[in-house]
């Protein structure tokens, strides 16, 4: 997701470690002067900058406001809240097909420009066997090219040529938009929100990293309830969320 730039500097970790968990603002700078130690040896450490941090020569500049987080041993990033998605390579997103032109589909992913999806990038697709994709369909796909200088490109197969859960979906159900922070919480390995929601009634859910979520339950009413609950989870603490889910579970039974 973030740009990696390994920086070799002296006493980097001590400066950063002090600030982990603190709120940082754009303009905060970590500058390190490489100074020789007493015995003439300069300690060299590698540091990986994630999203929100940029290298500026000998300095590291904070460019987004948020909380500084760390993943051992040397990865640091700024945890910030955003609604707008910026395409990044390797992320799986939900896109809406807007146009078919020649050999590619134009897909809207919610970024600054539309992404292109080749019709050969589906499992089992050949020049004669075209995939059944219409304008307005939802596709779950992955970015293979996503940088600021080029048009983003999507594929619906992985590196082995298998679909792996990607492709066209969503015959029924509801697609809605949430913030990127909530999406990251939903996609976490042991997500509390998903576990609590499963207890109310069964449903299908597809979560795209561009903030789009698709849900489908047995009836339309249940689908709407799940959608509303997910949208409201944004600003609630765990306690408030569990109380709300319990009330809904009792009400619907």
């Amino acid at each position, binding site marked *: 997701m973030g740009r990696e730039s390994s920086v070799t500097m002296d006493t980097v970790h001590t400066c950063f470690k002090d600030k982990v968990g603190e709120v940082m603002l*754009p*303009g905060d700078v970590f500058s390190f002067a490489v100074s020789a130690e007493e015995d003439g040896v300069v300690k060299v450490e590698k540091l990986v900058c994630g999203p929100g941090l940029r290298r500026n020569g000998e300095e590291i500049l904070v*460019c*987004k406001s948020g909380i500084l987080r760390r993943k051992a041993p040397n990865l640091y990033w700024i945890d910030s809240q955003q*609604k707008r998605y910026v395409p990044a390579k390797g992320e799986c997103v939900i896109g809406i097909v807007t146009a078919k032109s020649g050999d590619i589909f134009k897909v809207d992913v919610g970024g600054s*420009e539309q992404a292109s999806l080749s019709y050969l990038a589906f499992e089992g697709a050949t020049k004669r066997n075209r995939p059944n994709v219409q304008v307005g369909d939802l596709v779950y796909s992955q970015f293979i090219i996503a940088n*600021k200088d080029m048009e983003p490109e999507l594929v619906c197969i992985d590196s082995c040529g298998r679909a792996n859960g990607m492709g066209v979906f969503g015959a029924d159900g509801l697609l809605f938009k949430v913030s990127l922070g909530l999406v990251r919480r939903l996609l976490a390995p042991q997500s509390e929100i998903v576990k609590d929601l499963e207890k109310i009634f069964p449903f299908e859910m597809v979560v795209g990293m561009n903030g789009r979520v698709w849900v489908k339950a047995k009836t339309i009413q249940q689908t709407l309830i799940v959608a509303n609950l997910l949208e409201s989870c944004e600003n609630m603490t765990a306690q408030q969320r569990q109380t709300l889910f319990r009330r809904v579970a009792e009400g619907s039974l």
Partner: protein
Amino acid sequence: MKMEQSVCEPVCTVLREYACEQNILSKPDGSASFKQGDTSVLAGVYGPAEVKVNKEIYDRATLEVVIQPKVGMQSVRERAREQCVRETCEAALLSTLHPRSSLTLVLQVVHDDGSLLSCCLNAACMALMDAGLPMSRLFCGVTCAIDAESQIITDPTAQQEKECRALMTFAIDAKDRNVMMSSTRGSFSVEEE
């Protein structure tokens, strides 16, 4: 510029009560409301979004600022303010990270009781931060008025602005305290500035 004999010290650097709230609107990617006393401005930011081909810049984001007055249509006064806000935001944003995209900043004047341009600058900075756009620095806006007795008043109300002989608005960088933009009206000496 009239030459004055005496150099005056700022008598009071008291700012009016200010309040700020972020993420108040659901549709824009970032929004903020900034109040200085009775002056209140609402800001909304959209971006990075699609840009029209005739407006796109190949290596930077295109920033558009729109200031809507409380009543009536936009006039030359709003256009001048838009220019000031746009220059300050361009200097603070890292627009090279989003080439061929558009960033739109819409400012709505809810109430004007003096120091409007600095309130717009503050609301703009808060909204850009709320949208998560990469910035190289934060900035703030402050207005000073010099009245007939050569006293410097900071954050003047509309009444004080009408009676003063010079009005200055500065956008100041939060990190190094440098002046990023200045907009002045009236007559004053170099020392006073």
